[in-house]
């Protein structure tokens, strides 16, 4: 069994992890939840002994009662992979691209036990079978690039558990994966912990994932564990104020307003988007005959997993790519790619992207960034006042206009992105995963802001996300996309509670949820 006692990590004078006590008994899953920057990952890296060079750990990490923190590096290497294993968030880059998956799994066995390569490969075969990559379909000499993200994460799991460690640390193991793949990987991890009697430390920002899989939970804020206990009890009582805030934000639903204008604003008819794949020359039909209508003032949700074609469809709707078939109209006028689309028409739709860091040219000041869409309409003489007004609408200060983007937090940047989208007073704003990168509490604030803005301005939203639960809160109607087609179209309650399409049913079932009766009654 592994325990930490007063485990602290500091970088320079900055405390990152502050006196953390964790008990990780064999056969149990411990969820460690918190927002980004709370010190979750640093805690895990301190336990396994892989902290960055400039970070200093103190306190104790006890393995069967012996403190392993002061051990020299050579001895810690012998524990890593053998007694403590770890998997990481990003499966696409977690494996060596130049080494076969068999060798990568066998390497764990080779360096810790005196067996030869043939024996190690034979055992690697067994491990890969166990994680759901069975023999004929997944030979040992595959390279990582021949596998999908979920399959790569299975390889990473296989090499982490090859020597049946006492503790498996899983740092956001499914955050980069699609919902359906996430469910499969979590089930696999769950089963392995039960079968092997390992301890698992499951680090996640997602309370619903913890609710579904962890036996006990620790809530972390600013380097400290603020609350810990059996999962259901913590969720039901929510003793600490921070825990309550997290829960409130995660199930936050802004009060939805209904649009009552049934006139169509944007219409797509049998839209087809194809492109040829690099190297292969094959044609990929990413959007395959999609028809949809967005009404004036409507808030429409579009849900799909990666590869569903929703990003390609979004680019087509924004008039960034030419169509191979079908037609898109905005206000009855055709949407076409590039300069052939009239500027005044383009000005009627704007967009907010996912990445709060990549959405702004770092060398421009905020006023110039927000005013960029005026390129379509011509800069009005009072454009600086308009920028100031837009900043106020998104609850920032007018004098923020003279700052550069790096001076703002992720949530503030999304507000600036919204201000930029508002500046030409468009009739449609496309929100492309606009809150996906934000922590739950900030996400709730941005969703509130979006709802308020629609109330005052009356524009339509197209809200695109991979996450059904987020779309549910902000949309009057939800479309589900799969393999380039729209497979479901209806009000969110119906899509979530009584899906008609088999894929939607699968998606809904895979979406992690906190059991409704776990929440304390609102008093």
């Amino acid at each position: 069994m592994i325990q930490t006692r007063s485990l602290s990590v500091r970088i320079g004078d900055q405390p990152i992890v502050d006196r953390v006590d964790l008990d990780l008994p064999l056969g149990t899953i411990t969820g460690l939840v918190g927002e980004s920057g709370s010190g979750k990952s640093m805690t895990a890296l301190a336990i396994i002994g892989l902290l960055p060079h400039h970070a200093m750990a103190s306190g104790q990490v006890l393995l069967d009662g012996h403190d392993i923190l002061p051990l020299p590096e050579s001895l810690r290497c012998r524990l890593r992979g053998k007694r403590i294993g770890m998997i990481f968030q990003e499966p696409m880059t977690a494996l060596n691209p130049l080494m076969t998956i068999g060798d990568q799994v066998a390497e764990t066995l080779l360096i810790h036990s005196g067996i030869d390569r043939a024996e190690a490969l034979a055992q690697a075969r067994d491990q890969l079978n166990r994680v759901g990559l069975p023999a004929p379909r997944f030979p040992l000499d595959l390279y990582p690039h021949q596998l999908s993200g979920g399959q790569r994460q299975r390889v990473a799991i296989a090499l982490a558990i090859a020597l049946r460690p006492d503790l498996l640390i899983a740092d956001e193991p499914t955050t980069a994966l699609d919902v359906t793949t996430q469910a499969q990987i979590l089930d696999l991890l769950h089963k392995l912990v039960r079968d092997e009697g390992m301890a698992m430390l499951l680090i996640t920002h997602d309370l619903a994932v913890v609710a579904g899989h962890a036996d006990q939970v620790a809530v972390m804020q600013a380097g400290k564990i603020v609350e810990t206990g059996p999962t259901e009890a913590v969720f039901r009582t929510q003793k600490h104020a921070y825990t309550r805030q997290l829960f409130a934000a995660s199930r936050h639903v802004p009060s939805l307003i209904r649009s009552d204008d049934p006139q169509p604003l944007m219409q797509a008819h049998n839209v087809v988007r194809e492109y040829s794949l690099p190297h292969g020359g094959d044609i990929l039909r990413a959007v395959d005959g999609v028809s949809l209508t967005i009404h004036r003032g409507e808030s429409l949700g579009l849900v799909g997993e990666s590869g569903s074609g929703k990003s390609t469809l979004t680019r087509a709707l924004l008039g960034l790519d030419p169509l191979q078939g079908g037609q898109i109209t905005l206000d009855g006028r055709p949407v076409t790619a590039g300069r052939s689309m009239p500027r005044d028409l383009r000005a009627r739709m704007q967009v907010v992207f996912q990445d709060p860091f990549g959405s702004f040219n770092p060398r421009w000041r905020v006023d110039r960034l927000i005013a960029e869409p005026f390129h379509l309409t011509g800069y009005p003489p009072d454009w600086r006042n308009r920028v100031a007004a837009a900043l106020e609408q998104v609850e920032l200060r007018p004098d923020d206009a003279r700052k550069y983007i790096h001076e703002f937090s992720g949530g503030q940047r999304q507000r600036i992105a919204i201000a930029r989208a508002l500046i030409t007073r468009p009739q449609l704003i496309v929100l492309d995963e606009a809150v996906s990168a934000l922590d739950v509490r900030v996400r709730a604030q941005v969703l509130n802001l979006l709802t308020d803005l629609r109330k005052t301005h009356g524009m339509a939203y197209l809200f695109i996300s991979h996450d059904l639960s987020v779309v549910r809160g902000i949309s009057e109607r939800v479309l589900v996309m799969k393999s380039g087609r729209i497979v479901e179209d209806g009000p969110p309650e119906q899509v979530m509670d009584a899906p008609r399409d088999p894929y939607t049913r699968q998606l809904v079932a895979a979406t992690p949820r906190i059991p409704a009766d776990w929440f304390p009654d609102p008093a």
Partner: protein
Amino acid sequence: MLRYLFRRILSLGLSLLVASALIFSVVELVPGDPASFMLGTGAQPETVAALREQMGLDQPLPIRYASWLGTILQGDFGTSFTYKTPVAGMILDRIQVSLPLAIMALLLATAIAFPIGLYAASHRGRAGDVAVMGGTQLGIALPNFWFAMLLVLIFAVKLRWFPAGGFPGWSQPLAALKALLLPAIALALPQAAILARVLRSALIETQGQDYIRTARAKGLTERQTLHRHALRNALIPVLTILGMQFSFLLAGAIIIENVFYLPGLGRLIFQAITQRDLIVVQSAVLVLVAAVIAVTFIVDLAYAIIDPRLRKT
């Protein structure tokens, strides 16, 4: 893999074709026409006319290019205007000095650079790294021909360990190697400095990748990750530089040959320039450029051997 190979071979052929056309047309830019240029201003009109006919200058440009290319493909580079001997034979003689020199320098540079790069990367930020990298800064700033002069001054003139110049021919292999050693060192050292720096930064870059963290979580020591995972991945950028360096080494060899009075391609070219022997210059430049293109091709193949992602389809 086959598709990749096919594409590479196609681009190799195309590059050679366009390069030859470029070289051919630059020579056409000569003031006046090539025949009178080569003969100089004092030449008799009859001689010029004879040379014109011999070179086929009365025919239109594309046809001359095609026939020039045709004869080259048969291994015939024409006849030197000054020496009246076949250019192909002259180049073949001279390349027996230049090519071994460039290859020796490349091997030396690699042999010096890899231990240094690995050492610096594994001691990153420590005194050893700083000292070694300071040394490479100096190495990069060294003009190879000046370095060669210093080597001659020390090892040939003062210590008399090596000949100061000249080449005994390959009939005496040991003496020939000895004659090439100082020039090879002069060529190799500045290149080794560049290579060591590239290797170090490529290793440090790969050491920061996620899969290195995975390997560390398996229980590999930092040293083991460096040798088992980082090195192979770092080879990809290093290979690019290695390929480029060969062209610098070949060019550098031409200069260094002057310091050591080696009868290589370089000496031939400079004599030909002063003698206005366009046929020799043209052919020699073509051979040099073709060598560079061929090395690029070999580097491309090596990529595919290292990187399985390129082998698909």
